[in-house]
């Protein structure tokens, strides 16, 4: 499988756009989810992730097969997400005095709020609340803790892969994960005590 991916990458390096589209098909869902967890807007997540793919195509010659393609690609994606958030913060500061009621501007929860399929209305409400609280708690984390925790617990990457993506030592990643988990626990004490 990986050998096959190596061959595809070699074709991409020779300028084969069809080969690159094979990689896009393979990683587009992951890329969209990661971008969405930062942007909280599906349209923006699409734009940022597509931009990341195009940048990856342009700079594929810099990719050396020392690491996996997706860790290299996620690094590009995360950097573009960071740029996106910076721009967003700037715009927020500019529009601080203007109240925006536009529905599209609202940040969405990263979790699916499941109301149906749960035994009673109490559980359904609890689950809905939990999704919203969790999103809020995640947003309140320091940027690096949030990034590392999201990549680990929401996107399921390994600690060494996260270290490669954010260019940090594995020990630092573990420290961030520990602190982020404790911070979340404090914010979700009510839910953490209960059996969900």
């Amino acid at each position, binding site marked *: 499988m990986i050998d096959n991916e190596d061959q595809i990458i070699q074709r991409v390096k020779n300028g084969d756009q069809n080969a690159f*589209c094979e990689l896009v098909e393979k990683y587009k869902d992951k890329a*969209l989810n990661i971008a969405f967890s930062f942007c909280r807007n599906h349209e923006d997540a*699409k734009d940022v992730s597509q931009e990341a793919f*195009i940048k990856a195509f342009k700079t594929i010659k810099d990719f050396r097969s020392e690491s996996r393609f997706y860790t290299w690609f996620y690094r590009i994606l995360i950097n573009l997400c960071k740029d996106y958030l910076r721009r967003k913060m700037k715009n927020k500061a500019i529009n601080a005095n203007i109240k925006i009621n536009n529905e599209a501007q609202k940040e969405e929860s990263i*979790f699916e709020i499941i109301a149906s399929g749960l035994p009673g209305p109490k559980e359904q409400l609890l689950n809905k609340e939990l999704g919203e609280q969790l999103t809020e708690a995640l947003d309140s984390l320091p940027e690096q803790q949030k990034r590392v925790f999201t990549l680990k617990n929401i996107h399921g990457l390994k600690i060494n892969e996260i270290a490669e993506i954010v260019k940090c030592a594995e020990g630092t990643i573990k420290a961030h994960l*520990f602190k982020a988990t404790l911070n979340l626990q404090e914010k*979700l004490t009510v839910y953490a005590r209960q059996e969900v």
Partner: protein
Amino acid sequence: MNICSIKKEELVSYCYGELDSGRREEIKKHLIDCSRCREETQRLEKTILLVRQQKLKPIPKEIVNNYTQEIREQLAAQEEKSFVPALKEKLFAWLENLRLGFYPQLVPVAAVFCVLILVFAFMQYGKISNINLVNQDIALLDTLGEDADDVYLSSDEAQLAEEIESSDRIILAQLDSEVEAEEVFDDTEILQELGEEDLNEEELSDYLEIIDDIEVGSAVS
């Protein structure tokens, strides 16, 4: 009081199942004895579980549809766009190289070179026009079907004028020598008549002067 040697980072790796089996077993045993680490691990596991139980919001179909096709189109558009700037870049690089290779002290040399080229071109043009004239004449002869030697060619104009001039000079020279020879002959005849054939040059010239005077005198009379 027990001194705990386990680092918190190791507990994180334990919770995420990212320890090698040997180390994992060691920590497992440690957790039985160390209540502090056990509690810490339980708190971590609970929060992780809480987050992992949540499902990510699904991506809407309209976002996923045509996703790859749009990237393909963007790549094609960028490739098209990048052609002109690349060409421009090459041109600028070439001009820059040209600028770097410019030496002001070579300007007079270049000017002289240009003048020489112009002179050479002018001369070549003259030659070419002469060749054209000859070609025209040959074409004329072909159409007339006559021998080239008997026909006056416009291209021979200069040569012909020169030949005429030189033949004129020969005729004049001949005429001059004939007149001179005739005069000498006449003088000799007069002297023969006078019986003074054996005169030397000085005497002869004296006689000739006398003869001239007589002739002038007779002409006057």
